[in-house]
């Protein structure tokens, strides 16, 4: 849990437009090693886009993003090598539909890290064991439940030994009863000191696990605070409204 002082991800004055829409406005954000940063906000606030700019699935118009003090590579082999160091978990799992669960997890290590097949498979089985889907190793993704698929997706990212992990609404596509099995894996990761940026609507997770909550609205970071401070004493009206609306009733 102990977040060190080195900022592993730094975003300075990041701007992005989709046509007329200013989706990211002057974003400044540091994520420290071992820190769990949760991005929350209403839909359309730009939190997913922000998350995706960190491994350049979205490009930015201006500003800069640094990883371990170096600007993100723009293209080619360097970019691919950089992405290999950052895990990414998607809302819709995106497991490779034509490959078995085991092959989903071993593909990255074998193709990118050049890990020998037997080593990669042994490690993959350990990871699948850890996320609780080892028995499914030889099935294809469509045969698994959403919760299982998402846990495989986490294992697939972990197989690359990432220095940080991005979670883009990892539980939003799941049936309610499957959300916890995925969150538990994430809590476990956070305990082990993984650097995590998590876009989520799971307020309990945010409160329990994160070191810092970043609240976004209309493409801007409105507020940044410790979870207790944010949930108990939100400063901006936007944040108050948002918290009221999700607590509701």
């Amino acid at each position, binding site marked *: 849990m102990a977040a060190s002082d080195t900022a592993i991800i730094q975003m300075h004055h990041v701007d992005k437009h989709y046509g007329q829409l200013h989706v990211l406005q002057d974003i400044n954000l540091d994520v420290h090693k071992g820190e769990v940063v949760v991005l929350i906000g209403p839909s359309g606030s730009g939190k997913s886009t922000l998350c995706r700019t960190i491994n350049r699935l979205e490009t930015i118009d201006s500003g800069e993003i640094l990883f371990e003090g170096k600007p993100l590579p723009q293209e080619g082999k360097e970019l691919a090598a950089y992405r290999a160091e950052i895990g990414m978990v998607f809302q819709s799992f995106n497991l*490779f539909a034509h490959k078995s669960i085991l092959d989903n997890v071993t593909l990255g290590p074998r193709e990118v890290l050049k890990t020998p097949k037997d080593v990669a498979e042994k490690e993959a089985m350990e990871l699948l064991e850890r996320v609780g889907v080892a028995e499914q190793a030889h099935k294809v993704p469509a045969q698994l439940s959403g919760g299982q698929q998402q846990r495989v997706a986490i294992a697939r990212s972990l197989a690359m030994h990432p220095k940080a992990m991005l979670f883009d609404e990892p539980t939003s596509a799941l049936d309610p009863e499957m959300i916890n099995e995925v969150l538990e894996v994430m809590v476990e990761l956070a305990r082990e000191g993984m650097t995590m940026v998590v876009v989520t609507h799971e307020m309990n997770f945010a409160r329990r696990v994160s070191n810092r909550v970043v609240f976004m609205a209309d493409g801007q970071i409105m507020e940044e605070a410790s979870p207790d401070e944010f949930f108990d004493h939100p400063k901006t009206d936007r944040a108050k409204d948002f918290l009221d609306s999700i607590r509701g009733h």
Partner: protein
Amino acid sequence: MSAQTTSMRDALYEAPGPKTKRRTAIGTVVSLVLLGVAIFFIIRQFYITDQLNERYWSFLLEWTTWRFLLEGLWGTVRVAAVSGVISMALGLLLMLGRISNSKVLSAICRVLTDLFRSLPSLLLIYFFFLVIPKYGLRMPPFWMLTIPISLAASGVLAEVFRAGVNAVPKGQVEAAMSIGLTHGKIVWKIVLPQALRIVIPSLVSQLVVVVKDTTVAYVVSFPDLMQNARVLISNYDALVSMYFVVAIIYILINYAINHLSIYLAHRSGNKIISRETENPL
């Protein structure tokens, strides 16, 4: 997610109620009667015009007739198989060129694709048969037939492959990027394998078109099934009976190809490809 494959009928119509069931039953009876009447008139017409006379059919009992037809069939199969392979390879190359980052390569491939797709294969055959030899390039009839058929099919196949690539969910590529795969590996290991599975039915339809295209072989005097049938027709003066038999052979070939497609689609697990909805932001 692992949705059962629903038939077209299930997708378009709801389960029939009592009225619909009655109407369907009446429709079935009426169409059966109409079909029976049609068959009766066809056979009657054959009879009246003496097409059922033994002399038009007896040559079909001779081994030499069938040997000649089988030789033709072998020609058809050779042209269709070689054209099928060439057109798939060429179609794949055209598609890869077209989706490449290079603007020039992409434009060239687009023009070639559209050209091959819009030219009738007969015109292409005339080009290889009549024009090219004038400039000193002589080739055997087999190639004068196979190359134009391949070119015509490659244009269509390039578009089929492109549709397949476009049908692969974007999330598959993003996931591949995020584990650090390079562009080439993403194309070959993630996108193409899935795209090919998606387009298997269209590939097979195109193979059927190729088989039918081979029937213009007479233009270059290549002995395919159709050409040999024409020879038999003039020998025995048996137009209707011969074309009847040849039609059945073509139907059987294409029936077999279509069943191959169903088998392939099942085997390659077409069903495993489930599409999740994508919504970034």
